[in-house]
């Protein structure tokens, strides 16, 4: 199919490599063709379906003097590729980060065979009977939340990735992806329930695990979607120095924000390290790096700051590849040792001596979140807030928190509860694994609390 509609990948690459040879340049080419079908239900009935194809090509050129030039192209015509080649060629300049990353990736790859998977083994998408199952779940959710507007999307993707370098090393994979998203709108704010997975075998994609995950998420968060009539205490004063316990959705949002920070600015030091992991099964799983190498796990944020090599592509071309990220946080207790309830966690923190006489503010869900990448500062209004003080829990009306992202991530002391997979609502193919709750100590934190 791909070959019938498009000039074949091989002939495109031939053009690029012939041009590279002509100019005496070493080329790294990464190409991906994404064919997708998307189905949307809205408020209990079928809304629309759509199919599409995105083809992307990333060209990296290296001169004998070690200069690097890159260009990115969407749209597979021969003419566009040639333009992209010349864009990359004119862009040739000193780029230590990319050169260093190339050396690093070469080293990893030396020990491994090329990845070559026949493209015809690609999963042929979702079986038709799966759609009614999804639709039924959509309608069930609406029954529970009568005053909510609900839009549900299911997307099936067949992605072919092919890489080639001037030395002849080629990799080629085919990955099937399935992602489902319930978007609830309560009249003021949107809430997302997202679940998905990927597979690189010829097994058909199954919707059952996705449906189960969505149902579990709904059960866990249902209280958040229904506006509460219970009045709650408004924080009377501005807190300047308090312990925080935040749930997985909030910590995840902070991690996704960290990917937007420009690595070109001043280096930010972080106590907790953030890594990108090619984790099989996650909806954005990709085993290849856009430089045309096998993708090993790589650091994004370490003690010495943002690592531009790996960070680069996620920040600058967020739609090119999905990814899974993980914040290295000491897990203070998993589900086996403690039920992941805030009361229990705080009791544990007290026995460990991590919390003294002060109050702990528990933050759950996101009402509003803003992030300014230039200053790495954020503004967060959680959906729910509780105060734990002197063994007593009281609900309080949520307040805004402002601060710097690097300081916040560094102040995370540890996690509680099982690791949860959270999706970025802006890039559903980006996921993080984070504990159900994370504890943040004020010592390392510069934050201000403000009444809304």
């Amino acid at each position, binding site marked *: 199919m791909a070959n*019938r*509609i*498009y*000039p074949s990948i091989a002939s495109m690459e031939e053009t690029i490599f012939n041009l590279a040879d002509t100019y005496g340049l070493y080329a790294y080419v990464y190409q991906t063709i994404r064919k997708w*079908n998307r189905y949307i239900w809205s408020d209990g009935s*079928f809304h*629309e*379906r*759509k*199919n*599409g*194809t*995105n*083809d*992307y090509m*990333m060209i990296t050129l290296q001169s004998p003097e070690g200069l690097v030039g*890159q*260009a*990115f*192209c*969407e*749209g*597979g*015509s*021969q*003419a*566009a590729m040639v*333009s*992209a080649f*010349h*864009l*990359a060629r*004119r*862009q040739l300049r000193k780029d230590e980060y990319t050169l260093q990353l190339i050396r690093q990736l070469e080293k990893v790859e030396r020990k491994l065979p090329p990845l070559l998977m026949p493209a015809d083994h690609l999963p042929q998408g979702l079986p038709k009977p799966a759609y009614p199952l999804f639709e039924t779940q959509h309608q069930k959710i609406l029954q529970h939340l009568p005053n909510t507007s609900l839009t549900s999307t299911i997307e099936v993707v067949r992605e072919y990735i092919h890489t080639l370098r001037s030395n002849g090393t080629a990799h080629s994979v085919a990955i099937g992806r399935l992602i489902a998203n319930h978007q609830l709108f309560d*009249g*003021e704010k949107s809430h997302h329930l997202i679940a998905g997975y990927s597979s690189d075998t010829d097994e058909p994609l199954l919707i059952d695990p996705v449906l189960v995950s969505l149902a579990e998420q709904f059960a866990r968060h249902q209280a958040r979607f229904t506006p509460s009539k219970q009045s709650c205490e408004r924080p009377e004063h*501005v807190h300047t120095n308090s312990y925080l316990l935040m749930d997985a959705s909030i910590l995840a949002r902070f991690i996704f924000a960290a990917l937007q920070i*420009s690595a*070109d600015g001043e280096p930010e030091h972080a106590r907790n390290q953030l890594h990108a992991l090619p984790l099989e099964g996650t909806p954005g799983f990709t085993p290849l790096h856009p430089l045309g190498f096998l993708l090993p796990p790589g650091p994004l944020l370490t003690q010495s700051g943002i690592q531009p090599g790996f960070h680069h592509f996620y920040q*600058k*071309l967020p739609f090119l590849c999905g990814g899974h990220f993980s914040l290295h946080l000491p897990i203070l207790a998993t589900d086996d040792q403690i039920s992941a309830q805030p009361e229990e966690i705080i009791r544990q923190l007290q026995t460990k001596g991590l919390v003294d006489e002060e109050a702990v503010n528990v933050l759950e869900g996101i009402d*509003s979140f*803003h992030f*300014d990448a*230039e*200053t790495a*500062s954020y*503004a967060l*209004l959680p959906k729910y807030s509780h105060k734990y003080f002197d063994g007593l829990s009281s609900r309080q009306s949520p307040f*805004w928190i*402002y601060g*710097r992202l690097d300081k916040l991530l560094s102040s995370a002391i540890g996690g509680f509860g099982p690791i949860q997979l959270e999706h970025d609502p802006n890039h559903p193919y980006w996921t993080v694994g984070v504990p159900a709750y994370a504890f943040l100590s004020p010592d390392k934190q*510069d934050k201000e609390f*403000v*009444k*809304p």
Partner: protein
Amino acid sequence: MITAKAFSKQLDTAIPAQLGKPKPVSFRLHFRQTSILSTNSIPQLLNHGELLLGWEDDTISLHEISSDWTQMPHLPLDEWRKLRFFGKMSRIDSALENDQFPSVPRFDPKIEHIFLTGEKPDWLDQYQYRLVLTKEKLIQSNGIDSETNQTEAVLRLPGYWFDYRSSFLPADDELRYLQMEQTWFHQMTKKRMPVNSSIQPKSQYVVLFGPDSFRTILRHCEPYLQESSPVRFHEWLLKQEEVLIIPKIFADSVSSKGTEWLIWAPTAYIYQAGTFTGITSTRFRLKAASLFTSFPPQLVSKIGWDGYGAAFSSGSLVHTS
């Protein structure tokens, strides 16, 4: 790029092989080509098309594709036919609407020239820049065949925060002004304060919203703008005792009806009598109804701004602690 006529022909040639099956009878194709050249990103060439087909059995089908349509020897009609459903043709129009403030397409052939030839003006390399060339094409089966070309230039001198933002590259006199402004800025700056420093403005001062943040305010308020003449930035700034310049804001509704907004400005630059004294971040409440009626703003123009900024006295904004 493709014409309405050429695409009609492409559809027609695909049909004869499909005898006995429903045929497409109408179409709407929106195609966009974006080229981006930027000092801190990878150069990009993006092609993106959205196609709506109306079929003879009153169904429609929706497709997106990034390839150049004219390169397709055979349109995949079989695949498209399978995706038909009953829907309204108008749906695509509402899908194209978005939250963006409407912008007027403007085009600078000098920017297109840079994309076509790779020849940049010498002065450009002093700046961090982002140049964008967008070509949009809308073709419909009813004969509509329209093309829009648009350019965008954003320039920033390292260490200086007033971006130049326009559809056009600066003209020679504008460039001279920008260079003067930067020199002036560096001379007047005694020391650069860190972000989020404890510096807070005095009780009476003026807040100048840059064009971006002013647009955000316009989006959230039903403005009544008095027809006052805009003043020039530099002369105006020198006359003000204390000014907070805010290029970017985030707005959240405080009340459910959107009558009051909480505004967060991650960065605000403080100027006293024309001299830069520090950077801070700030937040305040804004009452949509009374903002423009009781405190009409002063419009401020500046070379490098793609719209007017607006200055309000601090009394019109309620600061939160």
